[in-house]
């Protein structure tokens, strides 16, 4: 009886949180899924809004621009996140060792991260637009994009990793040194394994952010030349808010949701496993 009462109280207490999740997250998601099975084109109201089953998904499957945009997004995420993690780790290690001026340096390093993305994007655009014609080149246009993203978010990764480094017990390094371990061995066998949770957190945050990249590319290249740097979120924006094709746009949004959700699930499992390992 007591247990049941407590369970009821528990449900009551989490009800507001649950309710807001339903209203804010689940309802719009359900609505988007519903829309994705309809033809709903605000620019062609004479077509009505009939149920068209999987036609939007069939169109998506055959839409070369969509798949290209997905490939761009995944490629961008892989390259920029790898660079950010590597650089962030280097910077964190350096800053961890540095005794003097750690505070000011840490603050200064955060400036790019605090800058609004659109401002940063315009800054990088002016750096490259004029001195080079890279923005008109389908491959080289990626260089300023990746550079801008790395410049902007490496400090964030660095900060996360620095926090991770500071939790590692100094005595472990002493023990390793007594055992005759070299610096490299210490890094591989002490630092890296203990930094793993922080690394994974940084990886998850950055990957999910990178997969949603929008404002940076919108302001830097607008997805061009042609559609050579168009990420999936920009294409979805174009379909939904410019062409006002709510049905097809929702289908794209659902596809993006599934991809991101799948990845998040994968990461959560990995992190979960990682954390459990640490504890046992």
């Amino acid at each position, binding site marked *: 009886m007591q247990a049941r009462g407590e369970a009821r109280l528990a449900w009551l207490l989490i009800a507001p949180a649950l309710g807001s999740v339903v209203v804010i997250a689940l309802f719009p998601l359900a609505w988007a899924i519903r829309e994705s099975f309809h033809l709903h084109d605000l*620019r062609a109201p*004479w*077509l009505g809004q009939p149920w068209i089953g999987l036609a939007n998904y069939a169109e998506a499957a055959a839409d070369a621009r969509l798949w290209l945009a997905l490939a761009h997004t995944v490629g961008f995420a892989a390259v920029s996140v790898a660079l950010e993690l590597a650089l962030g780790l280097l910077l964190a290690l350096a800053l961890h060792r540095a005794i003097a001026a750690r505070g000011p340096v840490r603050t200064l390093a955060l400036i790019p991260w605090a800058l609004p993305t659109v401002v940063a994007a315009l800054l990088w655009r002016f750096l490259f637009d004029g001195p080079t014609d890279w*923005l*008109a080149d389908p491959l080289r246009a990626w260089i300023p994009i990746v550079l801008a993203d790395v410049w902007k978010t490496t400090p964030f990764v660095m900060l996360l990793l620095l926090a991770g480094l500071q939790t590692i017990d100094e005595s472990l390094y002493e023990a390793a040194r007594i055992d005759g371990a070299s610096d490299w061995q210490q890094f591989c066998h002490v630092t890296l394994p203990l930094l793993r949770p922080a690394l994974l957190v940084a990886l998850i945050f950055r990957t999910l952010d990178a997969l949603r990249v929008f404002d940076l590319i919108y302001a830097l290249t607008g997805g*061009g*030349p*042609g559609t050579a740097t168009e990420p999936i979120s920009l294409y979805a924006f174009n379909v939904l808010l*410019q062409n*006002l094709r709510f049905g097809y746009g929702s289908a794209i949004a659902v596809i993006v949701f599934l991809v991101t959700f799948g990845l998040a699930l994968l990461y959560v499992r990995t992190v979960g496993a990682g954390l459990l390992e640490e504890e046992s």
Partner: protein
Amino acid sequence: MAVAKLAVAVALVCLILGCGSGRDDEIVVSFPGSALGAEGELLAQQLERFMAEHPGIRVERRATPDASDQRHQLYVQWLNAGVGDPDILQLDVIWTAEFAAAGWILSLDRFDPDTADLLPGPLAASRYRGRLYALPWFVDVGLLYWRTDLLEGPPSSFADLGGVVAQAAGRAGLPYAFVWQGARYEGLVTVFLEFLGGHGGRILDERGAVRVDSEAAVRALSLMKQSIEDGWAPKAVLGWQEEQVRFAFQNGKAVLMRNWPYAYPLMERGADSKVAGRFAVAPMPATSSGEPTAALGGSLLAINARSEHPEAAWAVIDYLTRPAQMLDRAVQVGQYPPRRSLYQEGSGLQGRLAIPLAAIGQVIERARARPVTPIYSELSGLLQIRLHEALTGQRDPAEALSLAAREMRELLARKDLGPEPEVMDDAG
């Protein structure tokens, strides 16, 4: 009868809303349009004068975003929701077909407007399937700016671009011969339209069939591409919109520039202009199979189909499009009138515009509306991508255009807008 109905409707609305103004014999119409700076002040004055002339009607202005894309989004939301509130709409010249096909705006034929004096381009942009849905308010046209100190006259053919013009640039040590808007946006389509018209091609024909893969189109796009490859135009134009292009020309870096009329007073009077007094405007060149073409921009006025007071809304539109009001607009804010009579010698505009009347008049006369189709912006979006791919060397022009044509045909078919359909139900 209509008046009686109107009076009843007004009375009802006033009863329901309580009509805050206190005058229950007054009809209120709303007009959300661009209202920034001098343009906003002028409109306020014009509406004051209108209300003095029509004591029974009050016009309420609403603030809207000035960027036309954003105003479009807002209008679509309102109209799609079926509200009658914005009575008068300020349409961009490319929206008429979309709004008319959706049944969102009233055909103005019932008011029997006098269109004899209106220029053909703006009038074409106001029509859809044989009916008039809007009245032109002011127009914008693509102009070719040329340096009078470096050339003897404006280029008369496209061959001159790589010939006389490029040589003039070389002699004077200017880095570029010709600058134009080549970024992937609507401006690129307007530039293409001008090259295309000059080669005798078009994007859609009279029946609404896609013709953008014609031989003329391939020649036009190839020429644009060649101008970059041969260095007459910098590769940077592929990221340039109006302002970057103006800066290049204004800083004396190019012999020719394609731009809109707004640039003229800025370069003529601007303290930082290096070309003041050394440039003039002309129509774009053409080949023998085409004709000089200027892309048409500008604004039209239309009435919400759900408006409770279409007659009052019409009275406002009728007033704002009178020659005297257009003249004020041209003189005070430099927006060009769509009336032929105002460009004639001795009209009230003579000597009062930034651009010499005869020069702008001959271009405005040739202004060509962009394709009139309900899905213009989507078609343009597809075309922009393929044009930009060709210009940036990702595809060759013929391939890019045939791809664009195929996609545009598919899109039209998907929206039930294939070529030459029978009369469509535009009452809905």
